[in-house]
């Protein structure tokens, strides 16, 4: 059975339009699933719903989020928070804003271990040092005493990765973790995440808009459009032959430096029309049901 199993998850703006329309997907233990789509497709809503960090204006309107077989949505808030905190983690998008500027690095890695999981400070710090070494940060001791602003963007992202792996989570949500980075740094970070994920056997829900990144990191992917899953495929299958017209168009629009003539084809209007019709039909069905 999958570690994470999302079934018919619907999310909407409070008193507003749906943002996710009965999304279902599975992430097996140790598996990396990519979530791709254009902005507004709802890809990062899924990760937020799992972690319980949906914006205040957004609510879950239906479905189940089974984590290790337990539906998170039915748990009391405190219990859900504890369970998620113990077995899941987030690698956020922007390393510049995801570290608290007034706390030193060390406590930002060890806090969950000490405060939530009840480790001793010494154990937690030893763990943090080991992790910082694992993410190839030179002189972990010094970095732990540093403040975020003393570190470069790439270093901060490494800290965030180390922090995400601190409690040996079963699942990590990586929400566009390299979008803010230079392409050369991106490569290092992606390799790092991939390597850590493989070594620790962690399942990864990898949210990105970049099909190139997906092709390097993920085993399976879900293509989203307008809050619906357009396609759920193994990565190799997808790039060989996308099944859905929309995902095919998305692939065609992605530029490839190796082939200047290819790519840069905007998604054809016909495809957009077709997907819109699909959404309309879905909403009509939802209204009836």
């Amino acid at each position, binding site marked *: 059975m999958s570690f994470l199993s999302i079934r018919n998850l619907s999310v909407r703006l409070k008193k507003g339009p749906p943002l996710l329309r009965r999304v279902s997907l599975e992430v097996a233990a140790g598996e990396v699933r990519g979530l791709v789509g254009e902005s507004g497709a709802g890809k990062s809503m899924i990760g937020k719903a799992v972690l319980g960090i949906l914006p*205040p204006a957004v609510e879950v309107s239906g479905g189940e989020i089974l984590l290790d077989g337990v539906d998170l949505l039915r748990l009391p808030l405190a219990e859900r*928070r504890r369970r*998620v905190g113990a077995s899941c*983690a*987030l690698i956020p*998008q922007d390393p510049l*804003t995801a570290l608290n*500027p007034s706390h030193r690095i060390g406590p930002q890695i060890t806090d969950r271990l000490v405060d939530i999981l009840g480790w001793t400070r010494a154990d937690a710090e030893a763990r943090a040092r080991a992790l910082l070494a694992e993410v190839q940060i030179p002189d972990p001791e010094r970095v732990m005493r540093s403040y975020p*602003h*003393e570190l470069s963007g790439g270093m901060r992202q490494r800290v965030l990765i180390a922090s995400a792996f601190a409690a040996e989570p079963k699942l990590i949500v990586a929400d566009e973790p390299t979008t803010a980075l230079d392409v050369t740094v991106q490569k290092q970070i992606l390799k790092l995440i991939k390597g850590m994920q493989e070594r620790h056997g962690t399942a990864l829900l990898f949210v990105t808009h970049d099909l190139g990144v997906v092709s390097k990191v993920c085993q399976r992917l879900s293509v989203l459009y307008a809050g619906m899953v357009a396609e759920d495929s193994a990565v190799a299958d997808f790039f060989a032959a996308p099944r859905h017209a929309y995902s095919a168009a998305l692939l065609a629009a992605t530029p490839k430096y190796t082939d200047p003539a290819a790519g840069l084809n905007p998604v054809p209007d016909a495809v957009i029309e077709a997907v819109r019709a699909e959404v309309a039909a879905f909403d009509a069905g939802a209204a009836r049901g």
Partner: protein
Amino acid sequence: MAILRVLLLRLLTTAITLAGVAVIVFFVIRVVPGNPIAMMLPPGATEEDIARLSALYGLDQPLATQFGIWVTGVIQGDFGTSITTRQPVLDLVLGRLPATLELSIMALVMAVALGGIAAITGTRFRGTRTEGTIDVANGMALSVPDFLWGLVLILLFGVLLPVFHISGRVTPSLDLPFTTEFYLFESLFRLRFDLWADIVAHMFMPALALAIPLAAIIGQLLKQSLKETMNLDYVTLARTKGYGETRVILREALRNAALPTLTLVGVQFTFLIGGTVIIERLFSYEGLGNMAIDAVINRDLPLIQGIVLLFALIFTVVNLLVDLLYAVLNPRLRHA
């Protein structure tokens, strides 16, 4: 390095500011109508009496000469002698300064506590009726000036439900073993909690009256700042770690949200110290402000000069402290 630079620069500007204040206050209070001699002339005095008394207090000298004498004295630590109290100005103002400082600090502590609690509660329950209630209370606190709060408090806790003292700083019948004028601190230091309780019962209302408007400002600003901070990535990240909402506010957001509030609180704190003048009068609290009003009424020129200079010094020192505190709290500045 950054802090040292700020400190040096500020010491320099403080000196310049104080010199400017000294010049301005000296000449302004001699230009406005009313002079100390007119204030002490009884019926029947003649022109000769005016001249005689003016000469006695040195007021017959040209302004520039008077200023020269005063400045020379000030540089040597002699701020002159008060006309009404016939005591050295420096002794008088230094004797009253601790009372005002204690009152201001108590008010600041209360304002920070009240404003902080309001902001944190409002943030914790944002979007609910609790936040609305806090906003309304904040608005009310802000729209009423401190001395009116003083009157309201006197009626509430002085008359209707008499739990606090209305006037003074300490019950006159108590024997005070103090060697300093810092009663509040010294009573704690000497473990005389009976005296401390009496002093607090005297300070409570004036301090609260001063604190309420500032608490409202702190509450409003800090809440706004907290709410913005609560949307930042590191706060979201902390939530995923399993922390509860209150813990997230206190641990992750508060310190960062407090920084922008801090500078403003510094400015407002100087207003609060200014507010002690009228509040001390209302509560007959024996501080600088109460003395300042008497000094102005009696046109006690040397005393007015001394008090204004001291207030100016307090203002600049407070601003300096706020800047330093800002630097200490903000790691970015500290390491720059």
